[in-house]
């Protein structure tokens, strides 16, 4: 069953064509990465899928709330971490006591225990992104839309977060579309990689990543993994010349 269908989509951003005629499908429960150089319209495409930008063409997306995580995470600086995480629950009408309980239960798993009363500006870069990711998961959405979720996280924490996300996918059956320019990250996490051209964004190639789940740190050292990374890299570099 298809969770998302994108067919011949064009997105205009501030009057300019940012994405031109992109099509792909995302089966339920899979993880799709959109990869391409900076300025190729990846973010515009993601926003169009989220229904936040007008577009031409056809997009099928699940009904109900969508977990959208913008590039910088953007927690609300005037609320504590706890309140920030409660907001997606409160907006959906879950009462405060229950929302608080759910958030407090999840904090340790994200390494945020003890920081619930901190304001976002007091968190480290890694913690901030983890919190933003947790807030996205707390939307209980079937579909997560992540815009470079680990861009601001250091290499060590980034891998931890890959593993965490991979783990969460085994527990909760959500589908994901992630925008990234980190090829290793895309290969590690994805079932499908959509490579986008420079500007305006056009579809270059769709690559299936059929490495077995659950993926672990060992996956990264396998030959299959490296050859996939190389293949995707080649496609991107080829396009830049």
């Amino acid at each position, binding site marked *: 069953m298809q969770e998302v269908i994108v067919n011949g989509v064009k997105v205009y951003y501030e009057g300019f064509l940012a994405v031109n005629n992109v099509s792909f499908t995302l089966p339920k429960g899979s993880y799709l990465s959109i990869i391409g150089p900076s300025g190729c319209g990846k973010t515009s495409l993601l*926003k169009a899928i*989220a*229904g*936040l930008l007008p577009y031409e063409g056809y997009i099928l997306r699940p009904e*109900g*709330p*969508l*977990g*959208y*995580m*913008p*590039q*910088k995470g*953007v927690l*609300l*600086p*005037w*609320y504590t971490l706890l309140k920030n995480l409660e*907001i*997606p629950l409160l*907006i*959906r009408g879950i009462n405060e006591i229950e929302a608080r309980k759910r958030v407090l239960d999840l904090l340790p798993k994200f390494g945020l225990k003890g920081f619930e*009363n*901190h*304001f*976002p*500006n*007091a*968190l480290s870069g890694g913690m901030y992104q983890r919190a933003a990711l947790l*807030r996205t998961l707390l*939307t209980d*959405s079937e579909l997560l*839309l992540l815009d470079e979720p680990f861009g601001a996280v250091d290499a060590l924490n980034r891998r931890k977060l890959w593993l965490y996300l991979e783990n969460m996918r085994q527990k909760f059956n959500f589908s994901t579309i992630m925008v990234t320019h980190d090829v290793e990250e895309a290969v590690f996490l994805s079932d499908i990689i959509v490579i986008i051209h420079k500007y305006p964004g056009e579809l270059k190639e769709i690559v299936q990543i059929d490495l077995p789940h659950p993926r672990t740190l060992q996956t990264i050292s396998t030959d299959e993994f490296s050859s996939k990374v190389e293949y995707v890299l080649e496609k991107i570099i080829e396009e830049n010349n």
Partner: protein
Amino acid sequence: MKSLKVVEIVLTVGLFTFTLSKSTIVSVVSFFALVILLVRLVRNSQILKGVSFILFLYLWQIISSHKLVPSYILPTPSKILGIIITQSNVILPNLFATLEVTFIGFFLSILFGIILALLMHITRPIEDLIYPIAVITQSTPTIAIAPLIILWLGFGMLPKIVVVIWATFFPITVNTLLGLRTVDTDMIDVLKAISAKKRDIFKYVIFPHTLSYIITGIEISSPYAILGTLTAEWMGTTVGMGLYIRRSFSSFRLDQVFAGTIIIILFSLLMWGSATILRQRFTRYLGGEK
């Protein structure tokens, strides 16, 4: 090291005694020597800022007590303090009247300023129509417009309130508008994606963001509120500090003029100080503090 401290203290006390001298020259010279010594002794800039006001008052006291300037032109600070105490039965009713107008006027000005900004935020044409007029009101001197407003609206409270609004709404409007314009659209997008209602977006994002801008506007305007009242009272009223100062002026009671002015300065500072504390309280999150 320790003996040096003792020497400095003895020197300070000695110089202070000399400032009390009957001879004008000895008194003034020892005052400036005392200032130089204090600057050397007190290295803490916060303390020095506090000391500066006291020194200023003390120099004033020396100058007027030695009759360097005739006391009917420059009364001594101690005499002014005396006036404030002995005339409190006259000053207090006037002060209450002034504060009443100031607070009501400033409160309405905040409301008016915010509403105007909201209107201007709705669509561009409304902004284009209102903004130039708002700027014109700010380029009109309060002292020129106050008599007109009193002429139109009479001697009651209303014209004074209008003058206060006139003198203070603009920074509040401009800051509120800036706040509304600088909301991070990514924050709104996150909430839109989970189909949040407009009300929720306002409550969680737009309002908290704009609030700190509104408070900054209030902080900028706050010293002008009481000055607006004073200007209106100067032009025509039956009660208020403006009237008290003007009457004192007409009868050459400069001690009373100073007394009234100092009280006004104190309350102006008090309003500004409270607004500053309010702003710091509401923007503490920017530093990540609890």
